[in-house]
């Protein structure tokens, strides 16, 4: 099957295979992405992040349903952590979205973090592009917001929603500090629990202190995702944010920066792989290392000469 061609024709299996190629770094992935790229740039990308147990998957499910009611098609990329010990993962987000499985306007794909450093955000970004080229109107990227790689993933979104729940105690402080700057919107899920108002006050206080604040002050929306309460309010604030960044040029600026980062990322990894391949295969790396160990030379000098030689 010609994956790119079939994908562009609307073949769901082709979309699925394209994402596998991206995820597994198959050689053909580059070719696929080349063919898909001209067809991307139409979808609006929503990032959803927050601590474990915040109900992100249920929220994603409800958001997707709401968009479907508006007649929009939805793609979902749900990222779950891979166990660093076994390399395995339980990809458990999909289970909260079972009701969407048979909706042809929705495509859900679960991905494990697979312990890759940095590579993950690149892969999810390409998975999003594949769904974009497939024609999805809205793409939701859902991930646990605890590590840097997860934060990198949601940076690829046009609008990022940070989901929190009341009563998480002190743990929340660290998480909040870490993700404060990436939230375009805040969502308090399970807001029927005690402590919801307190949490709203805390977030407001932090926003008051935030010196980087532009004229966009992230709105805080209370929802109870399991009861489908507050979802349309939340989407209204997404709309507002979209409007805001479209009008003041931030959306273009964000997407330009993203393209630039991506470009540099691909460049870095390709050049790195190319050079590494050449010096490892020829056995030169070991020789260099031995010399450096004996202090006959240093890594900076070696890299300098390798670069000069190979990138002429």
């Amino acid at each position, binding site marked *: 099957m010609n994956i790119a061609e079939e994908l562009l024709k609307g073949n769901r299996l082709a979309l699925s295979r394209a994402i596998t190629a991206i995820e597994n770094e198959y050689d053909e992935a580059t070719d696929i992405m080349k063919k898909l790229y001209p067809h991307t740039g139409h979808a609006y990308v929503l990032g959803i992040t927050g601590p474990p147990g915040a109900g992100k998957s*249920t929220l994603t499910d409800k958001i997707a349903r709401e968009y479907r009611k508006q007649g929009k098609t939805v793609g979902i990329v749900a990222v779950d952590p891979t166990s660093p010990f076994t390399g395995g993962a*339980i990809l*458990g987000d999909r*289970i*909260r979205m079972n009701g969407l499985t048979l909706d042809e306007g929705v495509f859900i794909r679960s991905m494990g973090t697979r312990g890759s450093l940095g590579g993950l955000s690149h892969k999810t970004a390409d998975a999003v592009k594949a769904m974009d080229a497939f024609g999805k109107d809205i793409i939701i990227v859902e991930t646990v917001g605890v590590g840097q790689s997860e934060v990198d993933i949601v940076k690829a979104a046009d609008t990022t929603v940070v989901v929190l729940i009341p009563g998480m105690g002190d743990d929340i402080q660290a998480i909040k500090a870490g993700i404060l700057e990436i939230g375009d919107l805040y969502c308090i899920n399970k807001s029927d629990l005690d402590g919801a108002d307190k949490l709203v006050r805390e977030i407001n206080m932090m926003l008051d202190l935030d010196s980087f604040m532009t004229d966009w002050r992230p709105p805080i929306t209370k929802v109870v995702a*399991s009861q489908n309460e507050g979802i349309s309010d939340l989407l209204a604030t997404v709309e507002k944010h979209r409007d805001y960044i479209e009008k003041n040029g931030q959306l273009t600026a964000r997407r330009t920066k993203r393209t630039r980062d991506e470009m540099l990322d691909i460049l870095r990894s390709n050049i790195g792989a190319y050079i590494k391949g050449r010096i490892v295969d020829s056995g030169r790396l070991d020789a260099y290392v031995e010399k450096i160990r004996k202090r006959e030379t240093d890594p900076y000098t070696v890299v300098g000469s390798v670069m000069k030689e190979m990138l002429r």
Partner: protein
Amino acid sequence: MSTEHEKIQAELAKYQASVEKAVARFPERDHLPEQRLYTPLDIKDTDYADEISFPGVYPYTRGVQPTMYRGRFWTMRMYAGFSTAEESNKRYRMLIENGATGLSCAFDLPTQIGYDSTDPISEGEVGKVGVAIDSLADMEVLFDQIDLGKVSTSMTINAPASVLLAMYIAVAEKQGVPADQLRGTIQNDILKEYAARGTYIFPPRPSMRLITNIFEYCSKNVPKWNTISISGYHIREAGSTAAQEIAFTIADGIAYCEAAIKAGLKIDDFAGRLSFFWNAHNNVLEEVAKFRASRRIWAKVMKERFHAEKDKSMKLRFHTQTAGSMLTAQQPNNNIVRVALQTAAAVMGGTQSLHTNSRDEALALPTQESVTIALRTQQIVAYESGLADVIDPLAGSYYVEAMTNKIEAEAWDYIKKIDDMGGAVAAIEKGYIQKEIQDSAYKWQMDVESGARTIVGVNKFQMENEEPPKDLLKVDEAVGERQKAKVNELKAKRDNEAVKAALADLKKACQDEQENLMPHILAAVKTYATLGEICNVMREVFGEYEAHVSL
């Protein structure tokens, strides 16, 4: 410490020293419990009068009745049902002829989840794990020629328990048996469905309402009926430990009581009709300790937490089923022995009724022959073993008393933890109880695979080229089609206007939280509205539960 205890302490030290030497030469087996033996020292803080006491006396550690099986044996209640109402009716009458003293109805999964046999989702499931009941018409056939005034019937039905109970009441009415003469039990325990068994329909709130509606209705109209069987059985089957089984179940029991009290009922008006359902596993002495501990905890909960005054409210009465998950598909005849041991545990633990599993249930539904052996197992234990001749025969065993204390303490720890989370409903919604059960299940499986735990015929003493057993029960695949035809026929001939009116009335009642739904359901059932139609009305108003799954 008393001088006697000091003496024992000294002797014990000597004994341990000698054992250390012996063990150095002849090591003990691996994977044994830590403590080698028990002595009076292990139960020196246990006050006999307060903690153990006498049968029929608070805290009922030794049993809920003063004479236990010296008066009469437990009810030998065999869980049965498959295929159509006609087939199951035959099996029930066979069991009664063979000396079974109570019926226990198994319903198929569509019935348990409130779908008609005609619903596409029922495809392949109709009549498989139990009998298919779509309407009152099926229930009439199911109990044909069985006098509901004489038999006591237990129905394993939860989410739609109200509907099946209503059907039972309606059948009795047709037989001329008044509701206040009916004896039996509905399982009606939705919390363990969320936590372990999986046949839920509605979210917790309306489910709890249905349950308290039944409590209230039955306390006035069906006073001899056990309105709930708060079940640890399935929690254990899902993989919990013995202590977790009783802890999570008693936490569920507390949640039901609180819901009923919140709905305006008085504890002593309904608590006497609460019953429990335990698992009987292979570790005989641990199980006996578990049964004893459960009685003691419940008595304390009722007295100290709910301030119950009637003795009956404080007595934990329970049904037992032998552990299905302990049956092996390998060398299935060995299961007869396992079931015999489990039966011994249940009897020495003081059960009020017992279902014994059949040897072939790891492979299929049991055949008539297997069911008979399982029933005979109970009869042999009752009449031949002597285990039922003395009350609570293991009381006073240093080990069993210490174990009873230990399981009780472990269970209290869990109950307190669940209280701190806001009770069983909150703990289930958080996935806490499910996670604890799964962790235990996974540990068990890994222990079996590593050989730390031996299962005869499975990871030790296997047989090469074992012949697969023949003559397993096969449910006729045509049952689904036949049952579908029955439903369609019924819909064509019943008074559809009356059905429509009854369902509309039920819907209105569902929307009014103050209304008791039982009379409305009973009225709907009598018009031959189907189970699916009735449950769909409730689904419309109440919504459906979305499971919390975390692995």
